[in-house]
Structure formats: structure tokens, C-alpha cells
């Protein structure tokens, strides 16, 4: 049901595309005009997305702000948008982070600014599309589409060996999601075999799960695609490359939002649709997430390059999120969503910080820094706040997410929670050693002397992030209250495991049916 009776989701998703067209008309010489127009469009997008939060009815788990238009009716595809408790905050995170990321590029990106801003706007559309689409085909289209702008962003405005990084990034994710495509098709036909209806509608697919023996390969294919995106432990090697080579705005969005698509995918596909298989895979995924937490922390400790360090830290943070999710408890999943949002804010902010310093110093390895506290005090204070939030010091947003994840996991798997509790320790180790070597100690490197502190623009995009760090830290209820209904419903769905529809399990496809029945139910 669409409370606002106004296609708000479509406007949010396609406003950036209009913006991109607008920007493409501006002459590429007028860079400030381009930057202003893009920023205003993205800001507008954020303002338009605010009513989603206020009009959101947190009592029901039904999809809200729904828009459904038949797209390819002959195969049961509809242009079907909608959000619920789970995807609400991811949409808000996207619309919130993008204007900030754009603002950070005003001095960072100097050549080909017009193309950059167009790519950034298209990326925004791609990401929003993933979070709001409820038709799995539409989901897949947006899922792949957002790869292109990110690919171009890393490839064109990236660091020295950006081509290798961007190719690895694109191919790795594309390879994973291509298996998801086959699984999607199999799901489409298997669902028809059992429920005699050709549909891509996520909600119906969730409510009518398949018999357990069929779910095995589907689960693995979807899990592979999402694990690469999260990135879970063995599939993470593209992340450091992509982060090191991406421009600041690219890293912010990559860490802030793109990684969340993996976890969101698990929440939308693997948990509800393949519930019985989820239960069998819980232990394996928990172990992998644990490895991810500790592995990410250990390898982050020894990184010479700040960006790589923060990249491996996201592997560790998202390990927590996956841990909470596959504990299959309400608090665990809510904690996992909170962890996603917190990781978006704190790691996004850390990348902005690194970006600010990189813009002035053009180097990222830690050994060249030192003693920033005495040179740029305000920068160091902000840097400290975000370090604390990423170490999950209570009072900041990190703690809320981590504690809920730990408790959620504790409820179902005590041993894993206890091991994970020690993860926070290693997070402190790598973040603080890096923080010490960059901010404390004496400023030995002469080049550091010409560092300038925050200018007005940097203030503007840093303050909201700090506000959210403490707002979630101190009063997380505003966010958690919106999630309860949807998360509880998701837990109910993961409980339906023994499904035996009327058919005797023998899968039969009748080939000719698509053509004869022209009016397919969407």
C-alpha cells in the first residue's frame, strides 16, 4: 500500500538520472556549476527520501510506498518497488552519504569533473534501485547496473594501477552475480512448477518457499554472489585493491553502500526464500564470519597503507554483521542491520578523513605521517571520533551494533559470541596503532608542515556524520523501532522449513504454457 499515493520511490531512484542528463548539458568548462548542480540534485534526493522515514508505518511488516506497473507481462515481470523496515535505512544511508561523498570531491577531482559527476549520479540510481526493487529481475538489473558507474569511477579517476583494480573488482562481482542469474531463472521455473504461476514478485516468492531438496543449489548460488559483495572472508581479495585505487568519493560509496548490498541480499533472498537450507548453512557461515572478523583484524594490523587498513577493517566489521544475521535471532538481525548502517557511517567517514589528508599530502602510507595532532587539531579530533566509533567504544554507534550482534549470536550460538567478543580487542589494536602513528608522535616529515586544517566545506560534510555517530550511540531507538515488525516477520519466514506443496515433488515443466496463456498473473 502506498501511503503517500505519490510514486515517491520512483522519484528518488530516477531523480539522479534526470540530474545526470542536466549535468551532461552543462559545458564541461564550467566545473563549479557542474559541482553545484550535482550537489543540489543529490541533496534534493536526500530531502525527498526523508518523508519515507516520517510516514513509515512501523507497525506492519508489509511493503510500503509500493508501486507496481506491468513491465514484461508475458513473462510475469513488473516494475515493482517498495520498502520495509530492512531496506528503509539502507535507502536513507545511500541518499545521506552520496551528497557528502560528492561534496568531498570538490577539490579532489579536478580533471574530467563533468564525467565524474554524471557517473556518480548514475551510481546513485543503481544503488537505490537495488534497495527498493521487489521484482527479482528488476533487482538483478539494478544489481548489475550499479557495477558500471563504480567500474568507471575506479578505472578513470583511480590511483596508479587502477585498471587492474577495477577489472578485478568488476570481474569478481560479475562472476558471482552471474551464478545468481542462473539461480534466479531456476527459481522462476521451479516456483512455477509448484505454484503454477510465473512471477518475479519477491513477496510471493518469499511467502511460497520451495521444497527443501531443491533449495540447496539455489542457496549456494545466491550466497556466492552476496558473499563476494559483502565481502565475506574467502571472497574479499578484491576489496583492498578496489579501495586503494578508488578516488575518495568512490571509496566512501563503495564502503558505505555497495558492501551493504551483499548483506541486504542475504536478508532478502537467502533467509526468507531458502529457509530450510539457511538452517543447514548457519554453522558454516558463522565460522566464516568469525574467520572474517579475526582475519580482517590481523591483516589490517600490518598494512602500511591507511586505505588498505580501513578496507580490511570493513571485512572485519561486516563479519560481525553476517555473524548477527545468521544467528537467526531478532536481536541478531536488528544488530546486523544496525552494524551495516554504522559501518556505512564510520568507515565512510574514515575514508573521507583519509581523502582529506590524501588531497593535501598525496600519500597514503602511514610511515610518512606523524604528529598531525599538533599541526591540524580539529582534523585529529574528528579522526579520533571516527576511530572510536569504528572500535565500537560505548556511546558511539559502533557499540550499539556490535553489542546487539554479540547478544543476538549469544542467544542461539553461545560459543561463537564468546569468540566474537574478543574480536573487538583486535579492532582496537589495528585502529589505535594506525591512529597513534598518524596523529600522535612528532611531525618528522617536512612536507607535513604545509597541512591546513578543515575548510568550511569539510566542516559541512563532517559534522552530520559526527551527529549520527552520537545520535545512534546515545538514542538508537529512533532507528530500531522502525525495524521490529519487518525483522520479526523475517524470523517467522525463516522458520517455515517443511514445505510440501500438493505436487509429488516431481518437477515438471510444460513448455508451451507461456505462449498460450497471454494474460500471465504478475
Amino acid at each position, binding site marked *: 500500500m502506498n501511503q503517500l499515493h505519490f510514486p515517491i520511490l520512483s522519484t528518488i531512484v530516477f531523480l539522479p538520472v534526470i540530474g545526470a542528463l542536466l549535468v551532461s548539458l552543462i559545458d564541461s568548462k564550467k566545473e563549479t556549476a557542474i559541482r553545484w548542480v550535482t550537489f543540489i540534485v543529490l541533496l534534493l534526493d536526500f530531502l525527498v527520501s526523508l518523508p519515507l522515514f516520517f510516514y513509515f508505518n512501523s507497525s506492519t511488516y508489509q511493503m510500503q510506498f509500493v508501486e507496481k506497473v506491468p513491465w514484461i507481462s508475458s513473462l510475469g515481470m513488473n516494475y515493482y518497488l517498495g520498502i520495509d523496515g530492512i531496506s528503509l535505512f539502507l535507502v536513507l544511508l545511500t541518499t545521506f552519504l552520496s551528497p557528502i561523498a560528492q561534496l568531498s570531491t570538490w577539490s579532489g577531482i579536478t580533471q574530467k569533473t563533468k564525467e565524474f559527476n554524471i557517473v556518480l549520479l548514475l551510481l546513485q540510481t543503481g544503488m537505490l534501485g537495488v534497495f527498493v526493487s521487489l521484482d527479482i529481475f528488476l533487482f538483478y538489473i539494478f544489481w548489475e547496473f550499479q557495477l558500471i558507474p563504480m567500474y568507471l569511477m575506479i578505472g578513470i579517476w583511480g590511483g596508479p594501477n587502477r585498471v587492474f583494480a577495477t577489472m578485478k573488482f568488476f570481474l569478481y562481482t560479475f562472476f558471482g552475480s552471474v551464478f545468481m542469474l542462473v539461480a534466479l531463472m531456476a527459481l522462476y521455473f521451479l516456483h512455477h512448477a509448484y505454484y503454477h504461476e510465473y512471477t518475479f514478485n519477491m513477496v510471493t516468492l518469499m511467502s511460497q518457499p520451495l521444497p527443501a531438496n531443491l533449495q540447496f543449489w539455489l542457496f549456494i548460488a545466491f550466497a556466492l554472489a552476496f558473499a563476494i559483495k559483502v565481502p565475506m572472508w574467502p571472497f574479499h581479495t578484491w576489496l583492498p585493491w578496489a579501495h586503494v585505487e578508488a578516488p575518495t568519493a568512490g571509496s566512501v560509496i563503495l564502503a558505505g553502500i555497495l558492501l551493504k548490498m551483499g548483506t541486504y541480499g542475504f536478508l532478502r533472498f537467502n533467509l526468507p526464500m531458502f529457509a530450510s537450507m539457511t538452517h543447514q548453512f548457519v554453522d558454516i557461515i558463522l565460522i566464516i564470519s568469525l574467520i572474517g572478523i579475526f582475519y580482517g583484524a590481523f*591483516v589490517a594490523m600490518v598494512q602500511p597503507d591507511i586505505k588498505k587498513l580501513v578496507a580490511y577493517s570493513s571485512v572485519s566489521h561486516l563479519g560481525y554483521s553476517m555473524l548477527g544475521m545468521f544467528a537467526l535471532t531478532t536481536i541478531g538481525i536488528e544488530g546486523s542491520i544496525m552494524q551495516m548502517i554504522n559501518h556505512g557511517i564510520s568507515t565512510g567517514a574514515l575514508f573521507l578523513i583519509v581523502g582529506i589528508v590524501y588531497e593535501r599530502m598525496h600519500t597514503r602510507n602511514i610511515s610518512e605521517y606523524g604528529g598531525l595532532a599538533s599541526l591540524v587539531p580539529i582534523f585529529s579530533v574528528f579522526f579520533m571520533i571516527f576511530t572510536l566509533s569504528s572500535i565500537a567504544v560505548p556511546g558511539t554507534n559502533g557499540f550499539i551494533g556490535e553489542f546487539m550482534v554479540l547478544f543476538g549470536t549469544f542467544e542461539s550460538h553461545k560459543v561463537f559470541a564468546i569468540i566474537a567478543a574478543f574480536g573487538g580487542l583486535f579492532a*582496537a*589494536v589495528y585502529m589505535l596503532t594506525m591512529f597513534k602513528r598518524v596523529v*600522535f608522535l612528532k611531525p618528522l616529515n617536512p612536507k607535513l608542515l604545509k597541512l591546513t586544517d578543515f575548510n568550511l566545506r569539510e566542516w559541512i560534510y563532517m559534522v552530520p556524520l559526527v551527529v549520527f555517530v552520537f545520535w545512534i550511540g546515545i538514542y538508537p531507538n529512533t532507528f530500531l523501532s522502525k525495524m521490529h515488525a519487518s525483522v520479526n516477520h523475517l524470523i517467522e519466514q525463516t522458520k517455515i522449513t517443511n514445505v510440501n506443496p500438493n505436487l509429488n515433488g516431481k518437477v515438471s515443466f510444460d513448455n508451451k504454457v507461456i505462449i498460450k496463456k497471454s494474460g500471465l498473473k504478475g
Partner: protein
Amino acid sequence: MKTLVLLIIIWPLIGFLINGLFGKWTKNYAGIIAASALGLSFLSAVYPIWQVILGNIYDYVYFTWMPLGKFSVPFGLRIDSLSAVMLFVVTFVSWMIHIYSNGYMKGDPGYARYFTYLNLFVFSMLLLILGDSYLLMFVGWEGVGLCSYLLIGFWYDKKTASDAGEKAFVVNRIGDAGFIIGVLFILFNFHSVTYADVFPFVHQVLTPETATIIGLALFLGAMGKSAQFPLYIWLTDAMEGPTPVSSLIHAATMVTAGVYMVARSNAIYDMSPIAMEVVASVGAFTAFYAATMALTHKDIKRILAYSTLSQLGYMFIGVGVGVYWAGIFHLMTHAFFKGLLFLGAGAVMHSMRGLLSTDLMGGLKKKMPQTAILMVIASLAIAGIPPFAGFFSKDAILAGALEMGHPIIWIVGEVTAFMTAFYMFRFVFTVFYGEEKVPNLYHELHVHEAPKVMTIPMWVLGVLSIIGGWVGLHVSGEIPIEAFIARTAPTLEVANEAHYSEAFLMGFSACVGLLGIFTAWVIYIKKWITAESIANTFKPIYTLLANTYYVDEFVYFFIVKPFWWVSEFFLWKIVDVKIIDGGVDLFGWISKRIGWLFRTLQTGFVSHYAYWISIGVMLLTGWYLVRII
């Protein structure tokens, strides 16, 4: 009343915000703002403490902090007898130290920043004490750890200071992990973390095994925070921070948080004798172990640090054995005299322009008479000489240990008491009495008495370290402090409580203290047996003690170095780059290799293409030829 309780916390927070945000403008008034914030907080604490003494308990909930599915964690403050004592100690001693710091830190470039951190520290410490749930205690717990990290590494351009700060935070984090696990167990079993919902139902909900697990987990947190045996390595390095910080954080308040936590969760500990045993024995061992190291050290602050370690050991013996009130009582008195000792050491350092090693000092009595007298009072208190505060609290603990059936711990306690007395007076004699070791050093440094602003708080603490103990005297049949604290933390009922005469115990520990002073007097004043002769008779032991059992080196080479090496060469270079990344690139390589093989088909010769067509023909027809043969 509700807002008054909240005010206690808000004052330091306001102080923190003013100094933090407007640090540039409140350049030299920062000290005054911070001190006055603390003063106001103490004043607003007096009335509630008085009410609590009169017998009522206050427990207010302000808002729900974190909704956890079915139940939620409220943000609430609670003052009962236990937290009242802590509240008094923390607010009063911090107030004194704030005043003292005004003098000590004058002229330091980070003046405003110092007071911001100090106020934040007090805010988190108050949160820790007044929080009405384990989670809020944990918030304070980590907040305090954070502030100690900031304050230790205050002079951040010194590499040793930043390393020490970081080491402190990391070791605390190990403890915090244990604490979190304890909190998880509590939350899981009791469905809530607030004390009001946990302690009354301990018996119905918990089995002894879970109680032990919770107890041990929480104790791991306590060990991290209060620097007990394995996790004590950060405290000695924490001396890198400014001395008032050491006195406030690493003597009076933060390190005692562990003791308060164990006392607070006495209901749980009562359920598991094993946990109690562990706490007591670790406390005893730390006390003895730290005392041995203090014997040989030269640096004033290091000696005081080791003495703090050993006194903390005592407190854990107290709470571990079951006499919670004794542990808390010793905590209070220790806050007074140890705070004073550190302030004194700070005064000495301040006038000696930062020189710390004892063999440069001698006969300071002449130059700094007031500090000398105060230091003597504090040393007497810590040594456990009757009229002074230390005696009553330490004796209560040792008596408790004996009565509760822990004779070994009692013996270790007594031996440590002897050693404490010895090293304290070794310090006093070498520094203040005797002649000037380095001719006219004092003259060059024109050493002089500490300014007024530093001596007044020292005098106040001096008075308190004398009268502080009297609260432990038998008055009208029962010890006031024991009754007061026992309201929330009743002493453990032990079946065969052995009764020894009060007088015998008191007398014995007093003699031990005097014996210690006498031996110090013999060696350092009379020099009948010089320290050097003892040193080379027990050469191996001396060197072992001198460099603290090589623990730091051990930790560095056997834990830190291999850790870094494994994660750098094995995890990163091999596993990440070679195995996983290699595995991924393998796909690329395979497809290229297949492409290379196929590529050789395209030789450019028409005839070869024709061959391929005929091969295709032969395959297609051959495959189905079988059917017609």
C-alpha cells in the same frame, strides 16, 4: 531529588563540553572551570550521600537507551550505600586533584585539553558508579579506559607516552571482552541487565556453574581494569602520563573500578566459591608479586605504581574472601593516602624539573618540609601503622581472610604488609632523609616548596589519610563502615567461621608494619647493612627483581612480535596474496590458457581450416554411424 542525582554527572559533562569546544578561548581559565565543575558535582553529591546514610536508596530511570527485542536497556542512575562510598571517594579526591593540577600543569601548552580529558574521565567514572545496569557500567568502564588512554598519551609527541597509552587501552580491551561476555550471560539468563532485576533473582535463575562462568568473566574484566596479575603490564607504563593523572586514575579511581564491580555483583560471587577463590588468590599473588618488584626500583613513580598494584591485590583479597566492606573500605583509604603519595611525588618532580630517580635525591626534607611531613604521614598510613587509615582497612581485610578460612592468603598478606612498609620507608628515607647525594644539585635547580595551590589539596588528603581510618573503629558494637556497606554488599556467610581475638590480629599486623619500617631504617639511615651488600649477596634475585622478572621483554618477544610476524608474513603475504588472490587469478589464467590452446587452431592456412571442417564431418557422421552398422 531525581534531577539532583542527574546533576552530579552533568556537571563534569558541562565542564568537559566547555573546555572541549571552547578550549581556544578558555586558555588559562580551563583549570578553574574544570575544578569548579568538580566542586559543584561534589556539592550536589553531598545531599544524596547524606540521604543514603540515613537509609534510603535512590533508583531513577531517565529514558530507554537500547531496545533489545522483547526487553530494553534503560538509562538510569542508582545510589545505594556501596555507590555512595564510591561517589564520595571519586568526587572528593578528583576535586582535590583538579585543584592540584591547576598548579602542576600551569604553562603546559595542552592545558585546556588536559582538563577536558580529566572532566570526561570523571564523568565516565561517575557513570560507572552510578549506572543502574551492567551495560551502563560498561559504558563508564570503556569511557574510563578511553580517558586513561588519552591522558597517559597526553604528551603525545613522546613516543613512550603514546605507546604506553595504546598499550593501556589494548590491555583494558582484553578485560572488557571478558566483561562483555559476563554481561551477555547475565542478559541471557535474567533477560535484563539492571541490578534491581538481577540480584534479587540470582538464586532462582543461576546454577553454580553459570555463576562461576559469569564470575570469572566479570573478574577477567576487573583484572584488565584494575591491573591484576596477567594484565598489569600497562599500569607501570601508565606512569608516562602527568603525575596528577597517575594519582587520580591510576591510584584513586579507575583502577578501583574492578573492585567496585566485584563488590557490586556480590550476589553472583556468593553463589560460586570457585570464582571467589580465584579472585582472592589472584589478588594475593599480585599483592606479593608487585611488592617484590617495588623493593628494588629506583624511579619514584614506578615504586608507587607497584605499591598501587599490591594494594589493589589487597582489595581483591578482601572482596575475594567475602568481606566486601573491607575491600571497599581499603579502597577508600587507599584513595586518600596513595593519592597523597602521588601528589607528593608530583610536587617533588615539579620542583626537581622532572627528575625521577631516587639516587639523585637525598635530604629533601630541608628544601621541602611540608611535602616531607605529608609523605611520612602517607607512608605511615600505607604501612598500616595503627592510628592511620591504612591500618584499619588492611587489618580488616587480613582479619577477614583469616576468619573466612584462607590462612595461606593471610600469611601472604602479612608478608606483603612487611614488604610494603619496607619499600615505602626505603623511599622516604632515601629521598627525604640523609644527605644530598649530588652536591648543590638542589641549588642549581633552586628546588623550593610546592606552591600553595598544590600543598592545600595535599594537606586535605593528609588529614583524610589520618582520620579516614577511624570510620573503621568499633563504635557501639559494630563498625559503622561495615554496616553501611553491608547494606548492599553483605559479607559472605561462611560455615566454619574461625574466630580469632580482634586484639591479637590488630597487634600482629601493627608489629609487622613497625618491623618493616625498622629494617628500612637500619639499611638506609643507619647503614649497618648497606643496600648494595644485600644486592650482591642475592645477585640473581636482585637482577630478576630489578627488571621486573623480564615480563615486558617476555610479552614483547613471545606474544607481540610473533603476532605481528604471523599476521604480516603468513596471513597477509601468503594467505591473502598468494593463496586466495592467487586462487582468484587462477580462473583468469585458466581461461587464458584455454584461449591459448584454441588459438593455435587459427594458423592462417586455409587447408588447416578445411581439415577442421572434415574432422567435424567425421565426428558428426562417425558418432551416428554406429547405429547403421
